């Protein structure tokens, strides 16, 4: 009757053990949970930072384990044996290859797809499926949400984004298909409510069940509308309507499986986020919390997270950088500007450290949440001034459920396709893809 998710801490502290929490989704007795054998699960996340990094402060000077942490990576010292730095990975299709300017747009939508996007302001948008969405297609049915897309900046809401490329290209690393970028959520509160409900005290298990029933019939009804509409549309319009069908079908599946997706009731949810924090670091950490909750509760196993959109000109006053990030990234070898870029890179790294340390502190049946994840972090541009897409700054954290080594600096021959890394990662979540974008095989040495 009175199910408030708010005052849990007393209980958790008071009894010094985990307690059943009131349900926010459908309730399942703990005994039922306990009886289901827990398989070790593996998650993948891709965290993107814009405008390249200052490479001299990123790349370790020695290979193998026990490398000295470069300035930018220092914040990761508490998890230093939980991640590897991968040098030499490249997204060759992010280069112009005859298409002129637009590196920010290209590197964004190439980052996880490995394809050369079509230069267009709107008609005939064409990228390719991204690694995360490939995983979501294959293993998404195992969790309530096939994937989670979050980021700190909305897509541009006006004007030209980058040199003749539609803004769709410069605000999405995640692509469901060639023509369909996956929209991201920027408000932590909305992410929370989507996962755990909106905490309406009038909502009961019974009313939720009824709502789901009505939703099903609403979807049946609109599918009939859509089907009758389809026959009257031209091919291009049918393609658009197809996106609608996909959306309806996914919600239908989710409703049909609602009973089987009961999150682990033992997880402490924390407070409901109030909205979008003003300060970027807090925003990143709060969205990071949401990703961690989603992984912990096994609501999804796939996440993309854009700390900012590429070309972002956000200043970082909190660390004394008043100039815009993109503006600075065209440093023209000015040492002062380069230093500020280093500071921004390090600031981002501090937020990653928060996320990784928190994941490491969460114990699972075998190992920690971090052990059972693969978190790629990096950029689609190497040096922001040169806009080059080889020798990308990439690191990968976690141990992939024990299938991946950590704590190394591995230098690959420059121009090794980054998509090779993705293929190897996909293997480790049970998705056996032959190729992705420009991949030439699996990535050696790391796994």
């Amino acid at each position, binding site marked *: *009757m*009175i199910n*408030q998710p708010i*005052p849990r*801490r*007393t*209980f958790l502290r*008071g*009894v010094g053990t985990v307690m059943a929490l009131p349900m926010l989704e459908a309730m399942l007795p703990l005994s039922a949970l306990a009886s289901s054998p827990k398989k070790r699960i593996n998650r993948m996340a891709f965290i993107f930072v814009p405008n390249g990094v200052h490479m001299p402060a990123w790349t370790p000077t020695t290979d193998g384990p026990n490398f000295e942490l470069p300035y930018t990576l220092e914040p990761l010292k508490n998890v230093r044996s939980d991640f590897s730095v991968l040098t030499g990975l490249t997204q060759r299709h992010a*280069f112009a290859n005859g*298409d*002129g*300017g637009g590196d920010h747009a290209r590197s964004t939508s190439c980052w996880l797809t490995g394809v050369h996007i079509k230069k267009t302001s*709107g*008609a005939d*948008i064409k990228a390719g499926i991204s690694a995360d969405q490939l995983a979501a297609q294959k293993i998404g049915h195992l969790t309530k949400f*096939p994937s989670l*897309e979050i980021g700190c900046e909305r897509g541009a*809401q*006006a004007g*030209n984004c980058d040199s*003749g490329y*539609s*803004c*769709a290209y410069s605000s999405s690393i995640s692509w469901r298909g060639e023509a*369909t*970028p996956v929209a991201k959520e920027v408000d932590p509160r909305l992410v929370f409510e*989507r996962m755990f409900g909106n905490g309406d*005290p*009038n909502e009961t298990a019974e009313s939720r069940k009824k*709502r789901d029933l*009505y939703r099903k*019939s*609403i979807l049946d*009804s*609109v599918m*009939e509308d859509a089907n009758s509409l389809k026959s*009257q*549309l*031209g*091919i*291009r*319009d049918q393609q*658009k*309507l197809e*996106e*609608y069908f*996909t*959306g309806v079908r*996914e919600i239908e599946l989710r409703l049909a499986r609602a009973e089987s997706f009961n999150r682990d009731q033992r997880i402490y949810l924390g407070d409901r986020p109030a909205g979008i924090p003003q300060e970027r670091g807090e925003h990143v950490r709060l969205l990071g919390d949401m990703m961690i909750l989603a992984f912990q509760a096994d609501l999804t196993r796939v996440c993309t997270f854009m700390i900012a959109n590429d070309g972002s*000109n*956000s*200043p970082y006053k909190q660390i004394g950088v*008043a*100039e*815009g990030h993109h503006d600075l990234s065209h440093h*023209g*070898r*000015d040492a*002062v500007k380069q230093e500020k870029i280093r500071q921004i890179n390090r600031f981002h790294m501090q937020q990653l450290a928060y996320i990784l340390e928190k994941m490491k502190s969460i114990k699972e049946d075998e190992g920690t949440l971090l052990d059972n994840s693969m978190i790629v972090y990096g950029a689609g541009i190497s040096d922001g001034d040169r806009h080059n897409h080889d020798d990308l700054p990439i690191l990968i954290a976690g141990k992939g459920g024990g299938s991946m080594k950590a704590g190394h600096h591995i230098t690959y021959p420059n121009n090794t396709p980054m998509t090779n890394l993705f293929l190897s990662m996909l293997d480790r979540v049970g998705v056996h893809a032959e190729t992705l974008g420009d991949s030439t095989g699996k990535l050696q040495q790391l796994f």
Partner: protein
Amino acid sequence: MKYIKLKTPLCSIKRLGLAAGITLPAVLLIFSADAAQVRKKKRSAEGSMSSAMKMVSVSYEKSAAPLVAKYCLACHTGAKAASGVSLDKFKTTAQVIKGRDVWDRVAENVSGGHMPPVGAPRPTQAERDKLSAWIQTTLSRADCDLKDPGRVTLRRLNREEYNNTVRDLFGVNIRPADEFPSDDVGYGFDNIGDVLSMSPLLMEKYLNAAEKVSRAVIVLPESATMTKHFQAAQAAQTPGSGQVYGDGFRILASNGELILNFDFPQAGEFELRARAFQQRAGTEAAKMSFRIDGKDIKTVDVTAGAYSPANFFVRTSVPAGKHRYAVAFINDFYDSTTPPNPKLSKAEQKPRDRNLIVENLEVVGPFGVKALPSEMQKRIVVATPSEETAAAWSAAARKVLKPLAGRAYRRPVTNAEVERLVKCVTLAQNNGETYERGIQIAIQAALVSPNFLFRVEVDPRTSNPKAERLLNPYELASRLSYFLWSSTPDEELTASAAKGDLEKPAVLEQQIKRMLKDPRSKALSENFAGQWLMLRSLNNVSPNPDQFPTFNDTLRKSMRTETEMFFNAIVQEDRPILDFIDGKFTYLNEPLAKHYGIGGIAGENFRRVALTGDQRGGILTQASILTVTSNPTRTSPVKRGKWVLENLLGTPPPPPPPGIPELDKKGGPLTGSLRQRMEEHRKNPTCASCHARMDPIGFGLENFDAVGRWRAKDGEFAIDASGTLPGGKSFNGPGQLKTILKGKKDLFVRCLSEKMLTYGLGRGLENYDRCTVDTIMKSVAKNNYRFSSLIAAVVESDPFRKRRGQGDTK
């Protein structure tokens, strides 16, 4: 800047080749002397075309080829032609039309003075005019012969359209779409069918939004029963009986009460609830009494043990008004006789202290009372079932849902469509819900139907996929209302469509006038101007607070409001669109007036202010635009110049080369004033050709700092706001710059026409639209550049009123 005298290629038209299958007989290009005469008259009336137009009907061989041979072929010949542009293979007019992509660029470069490059033999201005006029006119005429209205891809409502549509359908201004993910932008706007995509996330949000809207519109009779929730910590407590315990709990360690002074909205039966547990000691359980105004209603035994609270409740009648609801702990117990046994651990001790811990209190009710319907509900629910049979429910629902669905789908609906919605009501009935709940569910279904979410224009099913058709009146009404209002057609527009007279020119014109006067046309300033002028990007700028301490969110909002109101004034007063460049008035409130150094304006409210002098006037000198085109710590003449070229003149510079070349591989950073540093930068020939176009315009605005304040100095350096545009026109300061820009009104009108057409259609422009743009420009010039004439010309154009079947001319 002579290239601007002539028409240059469209700023947003895709440069496509002609369809392979379509060739234009040369005869089409030869016009009778009379027709040419008429055209010439028209053009000279516009005063915008040079005498070079006389050459138009002359063939390539006669007019253009000699010039091309003289100035271009030295470099642009054969397989190794410069930039891959080889011109020697073109011999005839028809070939030029076929290779139009190349020739568009030739015209642009020749008229802009970029080609031939410095150092090569340079043509005279007359020669430049002659060549580019021939190319433009030839290609333009070929475009007109294409006569293709194009096709708009199925558009889903974007966020603004969704919010407005729901507002206008149901009178609820709850903006549910603010929680939707951003709509992607293409061709500068977020209403482009090809770019607006749909995702499962969005579908989920549509379902939630539909629920929200239906709840706001239809009040359920049973909803009079409300649950009010209070954490125990929010309640008062008898002094000395205990305190807040953990996060939000309260402990009653001694006998005492937790008290809420609750305002019961009306008399009736209420359920008083409490969630609590005990700390057990002694022989009996903790006893908790529910009390109203000090009177015991019921006493319960709280047997629930530590950390496993249980729910307790009682129902009772309460009169309306404020009453004291309390729960009391009435059997406190403490065993002081048995000392703790030191041999036992803490957990094994016999409990000696009985306490009551309360987690929360709730008041639910009243029961058995019906809530009153909303005003909108009375208008929508025009029929209620006369009896509780399935047939009676369906019959009533049908009467309600048919007109409702018609308004939601923006056209008359089919019986099958209505029946699908009626089924939702039947389902509710079968589940023991009220009729009103059934209507709620049906509204939800209508609001996630593709017929609501998409602006549907069906394709004619003919054997000829390229056949075009006039839009039906309902489709036209929707195009109009979403163009001018970003919302659904209102009753009057729909009635006109139903009557079948919307297509009549006089009626259409009258509707346009009416709609522009309607307050809903504010959507044009919020959505069209918000994107054309990039006002929306103001939300994302962060000027450095150390340098610009007066910039805050109030000022940010005021800047946007100024430009929106300025735009709206031009719409409402039907002013000439050239006022955008140098209108001598604006709208200010106190924060913004102070920012501008204009005195005598007090308060937050905006008012119209006449402008004198050279400093301000027109959008270019408004703080919104000046701030959006700046960096956080400084102005950016490049961004400002680029903004003017892209958004006012429609002559965007080519994108920067991929992989920005390193400026100075050996040396250190550049020094000097911003302007000096930029001029250094421009010595690099790779950068110079484009920056020579952008930078001078930006320099002309250097008197405005990065948040749009007037300044005479930038730090220690005096502002040099002079500049010379390519082609040699010089100016000093924003006033003279604006004069030059206003002199390029053909470019400005073309650019604005293209943007407006793009926005109105929801698709990018193609080659075949150039002819439409020409027609719009002429009509606007003829009507003294009145804003309404721009809108009317867009609406009356073929692309707006017609639709081609599937299949592409590509």
